[in-house]
C-alpha cells in the first residue's frame, strides 16, 4: 500500500486542503488517485478539466504508477503573471 503526499492548489486546495497523505492499492496510477479523491470529495467533479498532475515536481501523464513517498501535485489551469 504505497502512501503518497497530495498537494492541491487554487480551487482544488479549497476542497482538499493544501496537503494530505493518501494510501493507495499497489500499482495504483494517478487516474486511480483522482478516482479515490473524487469518491471522498464529490465536489471535485468537473474540476479535472484542464488539470494536470505533477509527480515529484515534474508533469506526468495520468497512467503513471505511484510509489511510496511520491509527491503528487494537482495543478489546475495556471493564472500567474
Amino acid at each position: 500500500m504505497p502512501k503518497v503526499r497530495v498537494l492541491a492548489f487554487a480551487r482544488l486546495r479549497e476542497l482538499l486542503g493544501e496537503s494530505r497523505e493518501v494510501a493507495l492499492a499497489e500499482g495504483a496510477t494517478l487516474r486511480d488517485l483522482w478516482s479515490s479523491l473524487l469518491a471522498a470529495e464529490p465536489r471535485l467533479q468537473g474540476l479535472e478539466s484542464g488539470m494536470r498532475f505533477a509527480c515529484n515536481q515534474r508533469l506526468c501523464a495520468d497512467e503513471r504508477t505511484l510509489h511510496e513517498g511520491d509527491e503528487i501535485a494537482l495543478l489546475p489551469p495556471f493564472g500567474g503573471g
Partner: protein
Amino acid sequence: MFEIVEAPIDPQAVEAAVRAPACGGIVSFSGVVRESADDGRAVSGLRYEAHAAMARASFAEIADEIRRTMPEVRLAIVHRIGELAVGEIAVVVVAAAPHRADAFAAARYAIDELKERAPIWKEERYRDGARLWIENRCGEMKP
C-alpha cells in the same frame, strides 16, 4: 534570480541581479494589479498561490531556453504570492543583453512562457465581494 516571494518586490534589486558590464540594454517587465478586470468589474485585490519549487524550476527552464538562442542574455524572474492590493507588483521579469533587441525578445518570451507554464494561480477579488480563479489560457476550441 528566480524566486517566489511573499514580501513586496523591489524591481531595482531584480534589475541589479542581471546587470553586467557587457550588457547595454536592460528590459524590465512589471505586472501590476489593475483596478478593473478584463470584463470591467472593479477589483479590490488579487491573491496568488504557487507551487514554489516547480515555479522556480520553470523560471530557470525558461532562462535556459532563452540562452540557447541568445547566449549572452541574463534573466531574472520574481513572482509574488499572497494577497496583493491594486497597484502592487505581482511579477517582475528583467532581461539584460549586450543589445536591446535581445533584451526585449527575452523579456517578452519570459513573461509569455511564465503565464503559460509556471504553476501559479490567481484569484481575483472584486469590490462586490465575489471571487474568481483566473485562468491564463482559454480552453482550446473544439470542432
